């Protein structure tokens, strides 16, 4: 816990200070990398404001399941930890700078608004996050599985999804789990 530096980087002002639309968004720093923590409702507005400010490139979008580390992970004050997180990395070509968005998505209602209409490159990435974590991106034009077969049950990268194993054929071996 103590190793994580949540304080601002003194050498460069945060994007929250530079872009007026982002006022009030919680910000933290992880190994010097800037992380914004927008609420689920404010996520699209934050992404849109960042795109207008030059962060026109979505480099990555993925999800994380914090099932077993749910309560005690370091987050700035005021951000309520939830089971899932949607993590989007934005890049500004002109400023040569990255910003990461971490959106908390609760277990009871695993939905998140889509940023497909801000960054069309999120198409495949959001489908992968849906496939692997079962987070529905509301508004996405094609919210279907992308890597697993269409009829697959469960979402493999969730922490409570068991890892399959092949039973070894010995006499006293337990059956498949």
């Amino acid at each position: 816990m103590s190793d994580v530096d949540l304080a601002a980087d003194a050498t460069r002002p945060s994007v929250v200070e530079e872009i007026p639309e982002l006022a009030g968004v919680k910000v933290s720093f992880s190994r010097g990398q800037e992380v914004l923590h927008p609420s689920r409702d404010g996520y699209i507005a934050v992404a849109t404001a960042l795109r207008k400010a030059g962060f026109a490139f979505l480099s990555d979008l993925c999800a994380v399941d914090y099932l077993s580390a749910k309560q005690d992970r370091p987050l700035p004050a005021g951000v309520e930890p939830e089971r899932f997180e949607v993590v989007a990395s934005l890049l500004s070509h002109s400023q040569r700078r990255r910003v990461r968005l971490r959106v908390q998505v609760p277990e009871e209602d695993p939905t998140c608004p889509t940023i497909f209409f801000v960054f069309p490159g999120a198409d495949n990435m959001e489908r992968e996050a849906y496939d692997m974590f079962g987070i529905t991106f509301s508004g996405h034009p094609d919210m279907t599985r992308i890597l697993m077969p269409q009829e697959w049950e469960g979402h493999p990268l969730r922490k409570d999804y068991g890892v399959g194993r092949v039973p070894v054929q010995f006499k006293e071996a337990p059956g498949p789990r």
Partner: protein
Amino acid sequence: MTEISGGGPRVVAVADARPNGAEDPTDEYAQELAPVEATDPVELAIELGGVLRMPEDAVIDPDGVEGNADGTTMILNLGPQHPSTHGVLRLMVELQGETVLRTKPVIGYLHTGMEKTAEELTYVQGATNVTRMDYLSPLTNELCFALAVEELLGVELPARATWIRMLMSELNRISSHVTWAATNGMDLASTTMMIFGFREREMLLSFFEKTTGLRMNTNYIRPGGVAADLPDGWEDDVSAITDTIESRVDDYDELLTGQPIFRQRTEGVGIISPELAIALSATGPILRASGVPWDLRRDMPYCYYDQVDFDVVVGTVGDTFDRYAVRLNEIRESIRIVRQIVTKMPRGDYRVQDAKVTPPPRARIDESMEALIHHFKLFTRGIEPPEGEVYIAVESPRGELGCYLVSDGSNKPYRLHVRAPSFVNLQSVPAMLRGGLIADAIAVLSSVDPVLGEVDR
């Protein structure tokens, strides 16, 4: 969904010429269509609707396909066993006559859950997993993973380790690009190019075998440095490789660049504009061929790329030929970088002397109890980076290769997400194919250079 996937001709935005506040009930406003360039690139990417949205396992009823009321379109499956699909990629292509309308890339045939596997492997074992993702540039994958783990750990590498990493990843870039040139030649019916490309790749793989012990999936770049020092006489091997490949790239130029059939098959085919490429998150040669001078090695340098001199190759049109030319010239730039690395390679350690990260030398284990304990702890328990999360990106031969690593303080990654450039670049295939001919689809797909091991992970 329907307004996005409209299958008609290219959609252009209607100019809204209504003056602010002026309300004239009889005015019909501007009726003409604005040029495509006037549309916001993001809207364009959405509205072009190059992506076919239909279930991949659907039994296709031609009359049921949207936009096919007059029965003139058909859906053709390319792959997953088609020789030009570079692995097991399947494209569902909607055709009107020979013209491609919409495309749906169907992926997942090689999905083996490598991100889930990564959560079960320690950081020491992790490099063996990530190296199998992009099997044409395994060393770049290892580099990205190792940099992410080291960022979490906060270790400083000896200079020689970083220079060796740069040398190996640049050689890997050459190897990946000549393999691409080979398969691209095969797709365009130039079997000579295929033989040439694999011949050159063999030289590089032999050097990898000599250095790392393995030709592919090397597990050479590890958190804390590299697995072994360069072999004796490596300078001679490397200069032989660079000299040979430099002259052979000129041969490729002679064979393909000026070849009228090759040019006709590639020029003006599969054009993607810089705005659209950025909107679709395309990276690497696709983005650079469209004219965006963006190379992570120069623009956000990692390792010591700020200390070597090289040019970022960009195209002008963004067609298949530009992507070919960008890759061919990137081989030359990589050769330039490799030559500088050979002159700059310092003496010293090839891995960090930190007992928590690097195993002790074999001889020390016999004489030092402490070394034995460190060795045992490292290989049973592994590295334990402090809690945190990082995103590290490097320029792989295919584009931005990112690694999002979350550590909960234990010896295994809590979450490892790999931003695979091929996976993201595949999104631009429908936009490139739209409006082109089915015969060009093969050339376009080949120019995207997807590696399916990385797409599916």
